[in-house]
């Protein structure tokens, strides 16, 4: 490893070296705020033109069911992005949680669910702690996490683990009352709780402060490492919840069950308007993003467009959404 000695010290204050700050961006605050609503409306109308009953009660319920897992993942991802990081390991962690739940349900019953959630939260906290203390970019830590957790999940149970008994400890998530899927209601409840925390609690204010200007937060006496570790722990907890919802849906745990949901959940957060650079955005925007992604996933299925167009749409959506919402003032150098 090359010793990065003092001579490579980046000049701290860039004042004396004026770097041309190209101030251009596709969206101002307002535009990028309204954009997700416009996209959602146009998408829904376009698809209901294809399939008139798309906006019927049944299909909206399917839409809700569809998006409950992505919603849970997106909640955790939003918190991590607000604090200025990213969590690429959520899907793998959700798969690991589903395997743990499926394996432990027969013996421990409801205890298995608590156990899995605790493990997932601990893993998330560990990733946050390593990211902050060892000064490693969060996408590197979570990319390594992606490899580790899916590797471990596959080697624990390289087959799908069907849930033999005690399924009722999990099954209630898959049912529905008055036409509202429990999984979706559970997701909305979680979203509401976290949104209240973001707005009302001291913790929420600190999350935004660190996302906007980590150095100022540090110099204001905020224990940055503790808040960031909490953010990644919350992301781990949401991954656990997503794994739980998965087991409820397919009455089984599998090491690769959630892998395809990583990109949609990140797309949901970014399309909602939360800035990748941190500090801007909230869970209400994320809910909008989740609806857009769900409508797109369902729309592709209903309108018979070739399945190959879905990854193309995600790729384009993610890049455009980030380009519009990234806050150019705060990042001098884009790596």
């Amino acid at each position, binding site marked *: 490893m090359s010793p990065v000695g003092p001579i490579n010290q980046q000049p701290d204050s860039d004042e004396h070296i004026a770097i041309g700050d190209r101030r251009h961006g596709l969206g101002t605050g307002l535009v990028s705020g309204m954009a997700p609503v416009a996209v959602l409306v146009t998408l829904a109308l376009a698809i209901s033109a294809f399939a008139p009953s798309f906006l019927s009660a049944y299909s909206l319920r399917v839409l809700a069911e569809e998006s409950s897992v992505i919603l849970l993942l997106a909640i955790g991802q939003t918190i991590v992005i607000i604090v200025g990081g990213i969590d690429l390991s959520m899907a793998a962690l959700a798969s690991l949680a589903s395997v743990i739940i499926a394996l432990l349900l027969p013996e421990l019953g409801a205890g298995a669910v608590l156990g899995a959630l605790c493990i997932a939260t601990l893993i998330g906290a560990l990733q946050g702690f390593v990211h902050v203390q060892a000064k490693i970019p969060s996408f590197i830590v979570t990319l390594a996490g992606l490899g580790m957790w899916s590797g471990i999940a596959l080697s624990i149970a390289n087959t799908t683990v069907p849930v033999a008994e005690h399924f009722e400890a999990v099954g209630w998530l898959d049912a529905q009352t008055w036409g509202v899927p429990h999984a979706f209601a559970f997701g909305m409840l979680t979203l509401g709780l976290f949104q209240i925390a973001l707005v009302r609690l001291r913790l929420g204010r600190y999350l935004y402060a660190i996302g906007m200007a980590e150095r100022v937060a540090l110099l204001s006496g905020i224990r940055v490492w503790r808040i960031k570790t909490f953010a990644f722990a919350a992301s781990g907890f949401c991954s656990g919840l997503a794994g739980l919802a998965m087991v409820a849906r397919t009455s089984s745990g599998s090491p690769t069950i959630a892998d395809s949901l990583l990109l949609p959940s990140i797309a949901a957060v970014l399309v909602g308007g939360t800035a990748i650079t941190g500090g801007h955005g909230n869970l209400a925007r994320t809910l909008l993003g989740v609806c857009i992604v769900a409508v797109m996933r369902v729309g592709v299925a209903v309108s018979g467009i070739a399945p190959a167009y879905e*990854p193309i749409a995600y790729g384009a959506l993610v890049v455009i959404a980030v380009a519009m919402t990234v806050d150019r003032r705060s990042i001098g150098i884009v790596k």
Partner: protein
Amino acid sequence: MALRQAVESRFRAGILSMVRRTSGPLLALFALTIGFAVAESQFATLANLRNILDSSAVPLVLSIGMTFVIRQGSIDLSIEGLMAACSLVFALVVANDRMQFDLGWLGLPIAAALGAVFGLANGLIVTRLRVPSFMATLGIGSTCLGIAMLLSGDQPPLIRDPALRHWGLGQSFGVPNLALAAAACLAAGFFVEQFTRLGRYSYVVGGAESVARLSGLNVDLYKVGVFAFAGLMTGMAAAMESARLGIGHVEIGAGQMLGAITAVVIGGTSLSGGSGSVLGSAIAVLALAVLADGMVFVGATPYMEKAIQGGIVLVAAIVAGWQVHDRLRVVK
């Protein structure tokens, strides 16, 4: 006379520092090889050595492009999508059972050029739209995967061209052809890294970008150049794997990304940019190939390998980051 000494001193100093920097991966390579050789008698045979060379050919070419990208402080998560798209295009332009093209050897430059075009897209999104590199490459990677699925349709093209199939599978002078191709790419990568502006300035852009801007370098041009170069190498790797398997396949790149990143990090390129060399990455690729091959020998399932790679990236990042312990340095 002073001139010759200067040149010699450059290479002596250069090689010395190169050896010192690649001592880590070299150590890993020897340790793993000896370990498995002891554990499995058949491991250290010529045939198995040839296998390891053959199976490390494609990851090595991928690690060349990835070294440049990581040295610049960026990351490329689009490898799996890019390989899928280039593999399909390669399979469709050479003699295959679906289209009537038969461009033969011309398929290689086409696949590489297509990879470079996608790499260019990565670079432009990062520099022009100021999107962080992991987001831009995640987007482009997903788009390329969709394109590959479209091209694959419901009948993945089988490659019929005998010359290319021999190139993919055959050997010359006892060395697998793909290994020779990978060595050629490594030589090209080393030349670009040590003898061209793109290579030398990637150290400057990665190590001290503000100094680069201040000295009047067109930083964005070199960033886009590096992403395009990485794309070119990924396209080449896709063509090689397709020629070997004789099919244009959507999942041809599956699992290659984490392996390439692991190799580059072990190879001495620090994740915060500014250091490392393609030689170090190449040696690390060999070490990982020995590990993977040994795991099959020992009968361990391939799943643990993915977990081990994740662990190595984390440990390497921790070790690399440990020296720079400025409490105020903000790491997103």
